[in-house]
């Protein structure tokens, strides 16, 4: 990785732009794809739980507000 100085005139400390080699860029892209996959997995898990909850409420014939009123 090469650092190219791009410090704006108003900055009180140096600022650098990281210029990656093709190999480093590929590695970073791979890491970012893995991060995104993890996030999607988490969201799918959350959506599945929400769906289960809604299905259970529907079977009881009660709205979420009605369930809260009963238990709170």
């Amino acid at each position, binding site marked *: 990785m090469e*650092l190219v100085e*791009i410090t*704006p005139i*108003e*900055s*009180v*400390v*140096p*600022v*650098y*732009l*990281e210029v*990656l080699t093709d190999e480093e860029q590929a590695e*970073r892209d791979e*890491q*970012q*794809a893995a*991060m*995104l996959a*993890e*996030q999607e997995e*988490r*969201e799918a*898990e*959350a959506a599945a*739980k*929400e769906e289960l*909850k809604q299905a259970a409420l529907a079977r009881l014939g009660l709205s*979420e507000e009605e369930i*809260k009123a009963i238990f709170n």
Partner: protein
Amino acid sequence: MSVGRLSTGAGLSAGALVVPVSPASVSVGSGSATVSGNGQISFSGASSVSINNCFSSTYDNYRIIINPTAAVGTDATLSFRYRASGSDISTTTYTGQRIVYFGTTIVASTNVTGNTLHSLSLISTSRANQYYANIEVHGPFLPRKKNFRVDINTVGEAGTFYSETHGGWNDTTTSVDGFSIFTSGTSITGIIRVYGYANGA
């Protein structure tokens, strides 16, 4: 019991408990950044922002506040890594446990070990300015494992409010002097502030 006051940077005074910290330098993966005299780091169009030499022996513990104002690309995760001597620590030394809650749903992750980063949750492209992360880092410059805690508020594209709390640590026992945040999307724009907690206060 004495009550400390929050320093405002330019008006630093003896006895301040929380003190703004300026890094020695900043590097970005794309875009640009500026560091103002009070230590505020403003970045624009950055795929990553690396803060160098903000941790030192002056303070044991730090608070980092991240306020994005815009994000470009697909909805993305933000992540955090420590840095030492200008390089990210990207080894499998990060451990974390998180709880995400939205509406009446709560999702707790298992205790994940061997990660290469700490997650900073999701940032939505259309609601990036509603994202807020408040990070506590304990002992980054001390010769021991690094404790990490973050509280995040973020809003999904559909307007769903998410709140997340995430605790963890990094196994590195040597000093780290900085950190990076980076997005899995294209870029983010916003502000980072770093504060040190005065020792012995």
